[in-house]
């Protein structure tokens, strides 16, 4: 694991079907503060394209994407 940033909030969206994990992330970013680091755990394959695409469009930072056993960990920092 190569997480280099302190995570402020973790959303465990494992088992949640698409687009649940992405919508949970969007909800957290909506409520969060600039600079907050949010981590989403997702076992849905669609998240691998949806989450990076949304983070890029919304101009936040995708700090890390880590493949774990049976799920993916997305670390996102609210940039604006």
């Amino acid at each position, binding site marked *: 694991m190569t997480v280099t940033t302190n995570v402020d909030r973790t959303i465990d969206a494992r088992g949640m*079907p698409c*687009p649940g994990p992405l919508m949970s992330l969007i909800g957290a*970013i*909506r409520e969060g503060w600039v600079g907050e680091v949010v981590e989403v755990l997702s076992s849905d394959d669609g998240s691998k394209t949806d989450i990076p695409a949304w983070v890029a*469009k919304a*101009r936040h930072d995708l700090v890390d994407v880590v493949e774990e056993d049976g799920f993916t960990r997305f670390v996102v920092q609210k940039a*604006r």
Partner: protein
Amino acid sequence: MPARIVVLGGGVGGTLAANLVSKELGGDARVTVVDPTGMHVYQPGFLYVALGQANGRWLARDERTLLRNDVELVVDGATRIDPEAGAVELSRGGTLAFDYLVIATGAGYAPEQVPGLIEGSHDFYSLDGAQRLREELRRFRGGRILVGIAGIPYKCPPAPVEFAFMVEDYLRRRGLRERSEVTLLSPLNRAFTIESASKLIQPIMEARGIGLSTFFNVESVDPSGHVVASLEGEKAEYDLLVLVPPHRGQAVVEASGLGDASGWVPTDRTTLQHERHENVFAIGDATNLPISKSGSTAHFEAPVVASRIASLVRGTAARANYGGRVMCFLETGDGRATALRFDYEHPPTPPRPSRAWHLAKWMFNRLYWETVPKGRIPEIGRRGGNER
């Protein structure tokens, strides 16, 4: 002493669950439905009211006429639930005791979460909202119509797409199409939550000249400038803005400490029991389950809850499980529709839109009152993918 079963909410799920459990247990149970209005509203009809294809009269009926005679109806609001004591406090001051409780209180709206939404947008998520939108459309003489979603989860996921298709149709019929634009603002990177349905829908949208803005999560509305802004940093100008308002759970769930941060009831996806209280069940829009908030979901869940409560009362093994079954129609305009049928394990493979599915939806709307709340669609309500 008969088991005391209290059902909060007289919508699809509450009414059907009350009727089924009362029928199954007969004299072994006393079933009470608590509903703040005593009126049962068929919400899928709002879409047709907004587009001038139906009037509001056929959308509401006295809940009493939909309940079995042996089910009691209390027309009052529930203000607090105490699961340990088995008591529900009512707005007018009384208390109802229960052995088993069904929370079927539906979803509430929180339009105040989006600045400018109330002043700057229309919706078809209530009867008066749909009627106001209908009048606004009558006055419409061409321009830019934006259809968007101001919060997820929301009821009836196909509704905004259906509205976009149907309003495009409406503009053509009124000779306003060439002077107008219709654009769907989607919170995702596709038109619809379910990918297989999006693949079917997007080419039809393109063929009809309906625009699609992806990753547009509504953040605020500027009513005087006629501009809607997204969380992603984009802005869009409109002449008529139609937004699904943000939803949240009902106040009674939150006041009782029985909900999550948004007021949805933490519910076991198979047994439909509250995650912390075995004697409390939840149905329909009130739950936190990651499936469609729709009447169809409630319709498939109600028999499972009724059967499980009957088993608990009788002390027999509960066998009914909810498998995530949902079935809904999706209007694609031009008098055509498709259907989405899916469950926890199987995403939908929607058929090509046809007049037959549109007719099926129309028939369902017409037959609703005599069938669904009374449990008279046995092949859907009883089997329908639910494991028993």
